[in-house]
């Protein structure tokens, strides 16, 4: 069989169960595709030997009756996840050469479910960025290009490597993490599906922390069904993460009926931004119509505090990051600057962190330090926390009024060109998160579903926001939207 790497999780799983292919074949196919896709710079640490070893073991397990859900399926893992004995450096120089002695809970869950890790995926440094351009490895590149244009485009960020790899069929699926939109925005930019589950659904143990109260892991896949399969394999209660929810994990795939008759879908007026491209407006309207046609009831809703979400996010996330990143000090692991005679501990910290962190990370550490400092704490951090409470309440009120899910655009635009934002005000880049950060602040599940192409042939995504712990229902709504949108476009292969 050729092009096994182009399969999704569900299809490959079914072929494996029927004995029509093997994990070794699937894995080999992906490894070949990865080797040919250096230009995408998606995989930054390849683990072919480990992959083949796990593939062989999976093939053995598949001979029995009790092979787990993802047995033998080759996937990529975002560099933010600590993977035992394998480089895990969060896209940062400061973790150069760091090979953890432990496996993150999420990646361990995937291993336990039989998944085969192909390697580690590119990302913005410490997951801070929306274009993958802050990575120490250099940016990942989107497999998509505008019609009649060779300009390289961003795969989005921070899970840019994951999005690029899935869209380019270098793997069947990948893990991502989402603090302000880092799964959903790259998914939208690359015509893939990405879900950020409810905060607490996936364990954060072993995932390099960016902003602890916002970080969530999730799958990035080629279809909603694949997202359901992989989310179920990734998530679950973990006693090692105090913020992990002790709730049973439903069979998400079994909930994909496509029947959304009578579901109430909210369209929030505050997401209609000034200067929003017409194509995004159209996409949103089309998506609304599709859900209506599928039997859902469409209601206009208001989430009044939406406009304060982005500023609140850019206070809370850097505040937590400034503290979370304090541990990268050159003392115990990772990069340490070469010191000069007479340098003391202060110089070691300053030089190490100046060399080890890129500019965006430094900017956010400084912002975070500032907003937490004496005299500014109440004006910034505490106020942002109050805003967060209000945003959460906006959603609670809407759900209490009977809304089942909320439909919004995933991003304010299609993918932009790499380097296009280099000289822009950082806030321009932050605006990429405008539709996604509210979901993180409220701790809700959100999914990006590819729903169409723009005039230049680039994918656009719609976001569905669900009720807490109702990922199954959310996935089903997304499944209906996916079916109605019928998005089948693939990037033409140029790499």
């Amino acid at each position, binding site marked *: 069989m050729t092009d096994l790497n182009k399969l999704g999780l569900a299809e490959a799983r079914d072929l494996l169960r029927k004995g029509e292919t093997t994990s070794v074949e699937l894995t080999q196919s992906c490894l070949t595709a990865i080797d040919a896709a250096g230009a995408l710079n998606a995989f930054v640490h390849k683990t072919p030997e480990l992959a083949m070893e796990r593939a062989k073991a999976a093939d053995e397990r598949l001979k029995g009756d009790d092979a787990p859900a993802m047995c033998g399926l080759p996937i990529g893992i975002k560099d933010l*996840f*600590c993977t035992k004995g394998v480089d*895990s450096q*969060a896209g940062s120089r400061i*973790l150069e050469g*760091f090979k*953890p*002695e*432990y496996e*993150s809970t999420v990646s361990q869950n995937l291993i336990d479910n039989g998944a085969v890790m192909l390697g580690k995926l590119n990302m913005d440094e410490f997951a801070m960025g929306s274009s993958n351009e802050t990575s120490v490895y250099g940016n990942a590149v989107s497999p998509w290009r505008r019609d009649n244009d060779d300009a390289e485009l961003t795969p989005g960020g921070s899970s840019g490597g994951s999005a690029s790899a899935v869209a380019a069929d270098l793997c069947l699926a990948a893990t991502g993490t989402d603090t302000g939109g880092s799964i959903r925005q790259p998914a939208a930019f690359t015509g893939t599906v990405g879900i950020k589950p409810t905060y607490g659904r996936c364990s*954060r*143990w*072993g*995932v*390099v*922390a960016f*902003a*602890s*109260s916002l970080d969530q892991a999730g799958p990035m896949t080629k279809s909603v069904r694949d997202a359901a399969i992989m989310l179920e394999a990734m998530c679950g209660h973990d*006693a*090692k*993460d*105090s*913020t992990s929810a002790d709730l049973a994990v439903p069979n998400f795939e079994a909930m994909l009926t496509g029947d959304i008759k009578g579901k109430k879908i909210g369209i929030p007026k505050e997401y209609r931004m000034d200067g929003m491209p017409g194509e995004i407006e159209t996409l949103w309207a089309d998506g609304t119509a599709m859900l209506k046609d599928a039997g859902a009831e469409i209601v206009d809703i208001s989430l009044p505090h939406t406009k304060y979400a982005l500023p609140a996010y850019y206070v809370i996330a850097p*505040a*937590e990051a*400034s*503290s979370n*990143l*304090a*541990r990268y*000090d050159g*003392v*115990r*692991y990772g990069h340490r600057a070469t010191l000069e005679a007479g340098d003391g*501990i202060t110089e070691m*910290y300053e030089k190490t962190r100046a060399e080890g962190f890129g500019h965006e990370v430094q900017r956010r550490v400084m912002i975070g*330090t500032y907003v*937490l*400092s*004496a005299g500014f*704490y109440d004006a910034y*951090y505490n106020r942002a926390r109050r805003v967060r409470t209000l945003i959460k309440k906006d959603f609670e009120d809407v759900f209490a009024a009977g809304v089942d899910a909320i439909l919004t655009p995933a991003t304010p635009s299609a993918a932009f060109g790499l380097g296009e934002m280099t000289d822009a005000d950082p806030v321009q880049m932050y605006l990429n998160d405008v539709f996604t950060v509210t979901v993180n602040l409220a701790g809700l599940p959100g999914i990006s579903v590819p729903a169409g192409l723009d005039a230049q042939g680039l994918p656009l995504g719609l976001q569905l926001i669900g009720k807490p712990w109702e990922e199954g229902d959310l996935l089903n709504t997304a499944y209906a939207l996916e079916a109605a949108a019928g998005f089948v476009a693939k990037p033409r292969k140029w790499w």
Partner: protein
Amino acid sequence: MLDLTYELPKPKVISGAKHDWELVIGLEVHAQVSSNAKLFSGASTQFGAEPNSNVAFVDSAMPGMLPVINEYCIEQAVRTGLGLKAQINLKSAFDRKNYFYPDLPQGYQISQLYHPIVGEGEVLVELGNGTARNVRIERIHMEQDAGKSIHDMDPNMSFVDLNRVGVCLMEIVSRPDIRGPEEAAAFVGKLRQIMRYLGTCDGNMQNGNMRADVNVSICRPGDYEKYQETQDFSHLGTRCEIKNMNSMRFIQQAIEVEARRQIAIVEAGGTVDQETRLYDVEKGETRSMRSKEEAHDYRYFPDPDLLPLEIEQEWVDQIAATLPELPDDKKARFISDFGLSDYDASVLTADVESAAYFEAVAEGRNGKLAANWVINELFGRLKADDKDISNCPVTPEQLGGIVALISAETISGKIAKDLFEIVYTEGGDPALIVEERGMKQVTDTGAIEAALDQIIADNPAQVEKAKVNPKLAGWFVGQVMKATGGKANPKAVNQLVAQKLGE
């Protein structure tokens, strides 16, 4: 419970060159929770282990590692709070205190700034001279200990031992109710006594399991009373904090030295800077730890890795139900049940083991006599032998046997001391020893009378003198005791001597 009433101790007054000054002292006592595992990791807390051997991934702040609260540590903090008659907060929360130091791998200490687990309480601090003060406790919060930086192993490098990182500490914060160096030491001693009773902290100051930061300020006589009326700190002087004191003796010295330093500054027209200072034991002076420019901004904020800590009143009640009898109650009971003096009761309740030993000795016997024997004979003997109650060779049953023999007048007090020495060094059942070695007191007046008659007959001159000077009767008593090998009942001898010489 017996209501013990005390006079308030007088505040320490130090005479400066110009005025008299009083001291105002508040303490922050860091007590290591007696727990086998750390506050947020499963790593061992064993003292004296190989450097960096008791370190979990979360302790060394490896990427992606998360803290998980050790419930046992929470229980010990609640227990301590209950022992200090303090408010237990059913909802508390952990905050991060951010600063950089190599022995703080996370770059922040997890502590409880905004919502501590224990609120206001109080501790009765007795000074042993009939005076005592109720010192108010402001709060107890839980926090992680830091590691240890070692600067003297290499001329160019510093080393870090992370064994202590993450060990659970309780920080017990007092109000500025303490008025002198002795009171400060007594306060620390009382906290230690209570925590040892509770089993929540071993109080070992040498190992650093209990340390204190001491806040000292000075004020003119009368100003403190104004503060008390208004709770307005402006009536008090600017305080300095002396960090990390791990000896009662040094706490007292440092307070005195620091107070005198502040007095000298103020009397010379200067002002005291609010700052953190260290006590230099060698030089006997305090010195500034860091200047204002280096003052930390700790950027406290709620730790997003930990949910707020919510505990149930029912659980607190269960812990309260298992609380042992506390020192104040035990002491009051000893005074009322056994008729002990305040002093004896204090000595015997100093630690749980001594109290339990005493109770076993006193059970069904003369309490006062038992107290005398435990305090004077037993403790004295143990001290001479460099032993304590935990490795005492005499069981309470043995000592109780001796006390019973005295009460029954089977042996005299003098013989009892010999008997005690035999039991202490050789062991054995006191009653049996008395029997076997013929140590029984002679109460047969006939035998005593015969001996006395002989002595009177042999010493007519002494008899004449004694008739003029009754104090010489003692000589006859001594002679009788000698003649009977010390076994004569002294009471009977005294009576007979008085009777015969009076004839």
